């Protein structure tokens, strides 16, 4: 499918967001597209590097923060969402990105995904899905299809795969989109839209591993743009798109415009708790007399 999206023009040079650390991914890796799209999207958004935090888990995509000039936190396997949540809640003025793979976010860290979605913390979660464990040399991941062959599954997979977009819709994430590393302009655009969304935004990126699970040829042929007639506020229609057995749609599935972000709710809690005055440690101690 040819590129149709035209990217916006960056207001800050994308190179501003590059670090001096050499990128260690294999040549041809889908993650290069995501990294370059991230530089460009940050340039379009005009975010200041010192006000931007890129958090990550473990795996190939987990190295992303190291390749940016922003503040970064490369944590432990599967815990990128709670870590990014802590960063955002401690300083709501920061632009917080969470980056991780399919194993990081759906296997070891799968328990945090629904809770980040229901909390609606204002962070942008980019899942780089290569449907394999690349850094440990090609084992099956939760998104590896049942018909796939991998090194660790010489006789094929006995388990069905998870669908990240389906999960995000079921968890009621307030922004759900899918991109493909082979469609760079749309990827840039979707990162910008996800970042601009107030609340938890989930961007699933099909980012093939050319060494252990090269799905570039398949997806290049099979990804389909979500029709312009689709209204992202219409959840039922988003679910229909996800469930279409013949197509892998890319674009924005769902965007809710009426959910309060966690920070907004927390501010209300703080206001309510301070109705009779702000906290005072001396007064707090006096309640124990």
């Amino acid at each position, binding site marked *: 499918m040819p590129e149709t999206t035209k990217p916006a023009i960056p207001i800050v040079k994308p190179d501003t967001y590059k670090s001096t650390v050499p990128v260690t991914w294999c040549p041809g890796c889908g993650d290069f597209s995501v990294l370059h799209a991230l530089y460009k999207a940050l340039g379009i958004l005009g975010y200041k590097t*010192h006000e931007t935090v890129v958090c990550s888990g473990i795996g190939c995509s987990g190295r992303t923060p190291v390749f940016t000039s922003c*503040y970064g936190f490369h944590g432990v396997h599967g815990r990128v969402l709670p870590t990014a949540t*802590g960063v955002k809640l*401690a300083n709501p003025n920061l632009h917080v990105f969470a980056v991780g793979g399919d194993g990081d976010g759906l296997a070891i860290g799968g328990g945090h995904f629904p809770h980040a979605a229901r909390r609606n913390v204002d962070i942008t979660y980019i899942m780089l899905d290569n449907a394999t464990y690349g850094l440990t040399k090609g084992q099956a991941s939760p998104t590896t299809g049942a018909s796939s062959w991998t090194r660790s599954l010489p006789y094929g997979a006995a388990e069905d795969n998870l669908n990240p977009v389906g999960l995000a819709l079921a968890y009621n994430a307030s922004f759900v989109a899918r991109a493909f590393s082979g469609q760079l302009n749309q990827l840039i655009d979707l990162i910008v839209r996800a970042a601009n969304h107030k609340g938890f935004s989930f961007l699933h990126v099909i980012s093939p591993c050319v060494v252990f699970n090269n799905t570039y040829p398949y997806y290049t042929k099979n990804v389909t743009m979500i029709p312009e007639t689709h209204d992202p506020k219409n959840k039922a229609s988003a679910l229909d798109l996800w469930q279409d057995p013949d197509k892998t749609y890319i674009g924005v599935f769902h965007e809710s415009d009426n959910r309060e972000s966690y920070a907004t709710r*927390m501010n209300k809690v703080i206001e309510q*708790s301070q109705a009779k005055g702000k906290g005072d440690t001396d007064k707090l101690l006096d309640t124990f007399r």
Partner: protein
Amino acid sequence: MPTNLTIRIAGEGGEGVISTGELLTTAVARSRRDVFTFRTYPAEIKGGPAMFQLRFADHPVLSVGASFDIFMCFNEENLDIHIGEMKKNGILIYDSTTFDPEKKAPGTAILYGIPISSIAAEGVGLKKAKNMVALGLLGQLTGMPAESLHDLVKEKFGKKGDEILSKNLLAIDEGYKWGEAHKIDRDLLVPASVRKERKLIMSGNEAMSAGAIAAGCRYYAGYPITPASDILSFMEKQLPKFGGIAVQTEDEIAAIASCVGASFAGTKAMTATSGPGLSLMAEVLGLSTMTETPVVVVDAQRSGPSTGMPTKTEQSDLSFAVHMGHGDAPRVVMAPSNVKDCFYGMVKAFHIAEKYQIPVVMLSDQSLSQRTQTFTRPNLENLTRTERAHAKKNGSYKRFLDTENGVSPVAFPGDEGLNFVTTGLEHDEEGHPSWSPSNHERMSAKRYRKLEFIAREKGFTRRFGDEHATVGVICWGSTEGPVEEAMSMAAAQGLEVKGLTLKMIEPLPDEEIRSFMTGLKHIIVPEINFTGQLAKILRAQYLFPFKSYTKCNGLPFDPEEIFARIEEVIRRA
């Protein structure tokens, strides 16, 4: 006049045993007497035996004691469980509507029947208020003013509506009147203190929460677990008032990971849990060490392993707290020894965590976390509140600069010109991943160097007793009170013994321990666990035959038990 008095209240879970005890405790504290309480209850909300014991005196109380002077018994089953521990001439107060204890109580006991069930049902018109009838009676017998009890009940039930409140007040009055009409021929009036200021009465969990807030903690994340859940509730209620945030996370891993994230962003952060939760936190605690992102973790220990006995006390997480996780991971393990120490200990935990950019595990236990105790109100102006050393913009910022004490000045996201990426991978001074052999040795040494400096920080031991003694006791955490009381008993019998409480076990306050050990021939190490975990740590460090003395029956030490051990060691010496 007795100088101290111990009251035990027992019944089924759901009968109001704990709330009766709590209200009486506050009344006693407000009457300017020192109080110490202990509770034990089933893991279920309703049913199963519940017990609350309070001991109060005209002087500071160090332990709750094993036996008791007054026994308020709500039903016959609980009579069987507890009567054997009552003092010989104790007073047994029982619900005469439901049972007659005549054959079961010792002949020397004073039997005092009161039909609390029928007074509540008929006189008050609210069956559930029988514990308030009991409270009124206990208040009257111990000389608490009726108004004080009224005030407490108004504070507790004020929000539940006029009818519930007025019935509870009536129940108090009925119990109080019964006491006035049926006098006991024994002096139960403990003198009040002459001091003017009322002391605070707090639980260990409350004191740790308040201490954290006083230290400047503004981010809390936790997952409910007995016996640490009170801290989550406290923080959810109080932190927003201070502009802070308290989050109930989906599990303990998320709790600690979000604390590390919040701390990285520049906020003082903590979580609280018990053993099962601490087990889950091990990996992220290693991340905290590696990224030098401070976080404070309270572990209110309970009996283990696995689910163990969730509502029973134990000091069995020490080995794990010190040694947990993979790799060489320096961390600090502290242990408060009483409720007052819970408050000051948390201030100190944040001081060490922030000053040295290192995780601190604070080991409380069920008996300390959930007991209440009076202590002099802290003067907040005298507390040491510490902020992380902050980097200056000098053009070539190295987040992990190798320094004399291992501490590198920090920057927070939002600070312009100091951007860095931190990682759980081994990294160089700039924070870039590095597999260089010499770098790993150098950075490991940098991280461990902090412990050498922390070991020399003051105030992590307390020394007491007879300095000329050749027999000593080293204890940690909540065992300090019973040990100190046992030593007073020994002193009263002319037995010389000296004691040392360790309030930090990793790193060990080495100089102070060596100084304490000078001249000692025998050192007893009492602990509430099966294996003698502190004794093992001390033996490995000092190659001295420490005498481990342990029990693990879910209950704190009775001073008598420790006294007997001290006496035995001295007699054999």
